[in-house]
């Protein structure tokens, strides 16, 4: 049975339709890379799955139940956690406080302060530091750690690498390595296509709010994804 089912989901921002009737499902333990240009609807889709954005139509099913009407904190309790674009930490709180706040409101499970610090050792010396004073890489580690503290079954990672130095990106992915393959279902938005393909089992490429291409990561080549990403195959359809 699929852990997540998205059915005919449509999401709007005022007059703008950001997600246009998307449907797909994910099996438990799958890692889905979501790629697409700016404005393709990736972030809106993740936020809608997390309950942070109310869809205009369609439904989100998690673990066999329709959660479309559930608020974000209720979805966290069921096991959906979002690492938002831009991290969105509680900047005036310490790293430890950020992590503990999440831990107090999630599910019980293997992730706790000790195991999160084991996965992200770079946070150990920063526990008492104000989250707003951390480097970008440390903030991203805290944001992912905060999501893990809720013991998610579905982890949504939005723009993991954005604004990080190449070294910080490597560090974050090294820490994620243990998580991937541990059975946690993950949807990851990543601009670096080689990395997206290498960490995922499946790729969905979005274009203007719809799915332009979908397939197993091993079956899709860079050229096919690039064409879908830019919608290059569409030009000949419209030409004239």
């Amino acid at each position: 049975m699929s852990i997540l089912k998205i059915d005919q989901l449509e999401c709007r921002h005022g007059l703008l339709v950001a997600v246009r009737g998307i449907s797909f499902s994910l099996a438990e333990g799958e890692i889905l890379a979501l790629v697409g240009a700016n404005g393709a609807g990736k972030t809106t889709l993740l936020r809608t799955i997390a309950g942070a954005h109310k869809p205009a139509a369609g439904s989100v099913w998690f673990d066999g139940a329709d959660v479309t009407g559930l608020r974000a904190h209720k979805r966290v309790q069921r096991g959906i956690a979002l690492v938002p674009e831009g991290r969105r930490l509680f900047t005036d709180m310490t790293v430890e406080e950020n992590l503990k706040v999440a831990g107090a409101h999630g599910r019980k499970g293997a992730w706790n302060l000790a195991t999160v610090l084991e996965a992200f050792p770079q946070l150990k010396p920063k526990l008492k530091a104000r989250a707003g004073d951390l480097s970008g890489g440390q903030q991203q580690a805290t944001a992912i750690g905060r999501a893990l503290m809720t013991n998610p079954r579905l982890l949504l990672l939005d723009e993991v690498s954005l604004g990080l130095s190449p070294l910080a990106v490597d560090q974050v992915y090294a820490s994620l390595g243990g998580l991937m393959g541990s059975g946690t279902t993950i949807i990851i938005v990543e601009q670096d296509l080689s990395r997206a393909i290498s960490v995922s089992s499946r790729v969905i490429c979005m274009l203007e709010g719809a799915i332009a291409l979908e397939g197993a990561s091993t079956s899709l080549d860079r050229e096919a994804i690039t064409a879908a990403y830019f919608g290059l195959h569409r030009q000949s359809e419209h030409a004239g």
Partner: protein
Amino acid sequence: MSSGAILNATGLTKRFGALVVLNQVDFVIAPGEAIGIVGPNGAGKTTLLNVLSGAYPPSAGTVNFQGQDVSRLDAAERNRRGIARSHQVPRPFGGMTVFENLHVAAAIGGNLHGDAASARCIESLELCGMTRLANRRAETLGLLDRKRLEMARALATGPQLILLDEIGGGLTDGEAAELVKIIRAINGSGVAVVWIEHIVHILLQVVTRLVCMDAGRILAEGDPRAVMTNPEVISAYLGSSAEAVS
């Protein structure tokens, strides 16, 4: 080419504090040309448009428009001289009708009044396919019609150059085709168009030259198809294919 250019920008640089968003960019526009600008997030596309339109003064470099240095002129003055633009988020005067919105533009940007202003407004409405909406209050318009109004308002100022900032976002396929038709018509009337757009396939239906920016510089320019298949351009969006991933 630069001698016959309508706009000639050289060494354009824009800094925000320590951040260099636009780095020594040279940009030439021929009269009546249609140019597309693409590039990943943060490449400096909108900043380039802002420096060309006068929304920001450049930190260094010059903008020559129709043979005159306009680098230090503000956006309103550049608009009066023939540079108009649209914004990513249309902000019409919501309580005014479409026609009234255009009238404001014709008067302030085009220095036209009375019958001459009305004639310009009618012409702009026709070109943008929104004559039937002339008496509608702007706040009641849907997304495509707001974008139409954004372009008609720019046209009402009587520009020789129109700068379009991501005007294609959020449209259905049918609406996007409609938008393409309008931009072609604007360009066909002799107005040069510079169009920033993420939706590449609609851009390629209009422009004859494509510029790809990355990290504040021009990474590639030329034939649109050649630019979009340039490996450096693809890497700027999607990372390098040769890069080792651990």
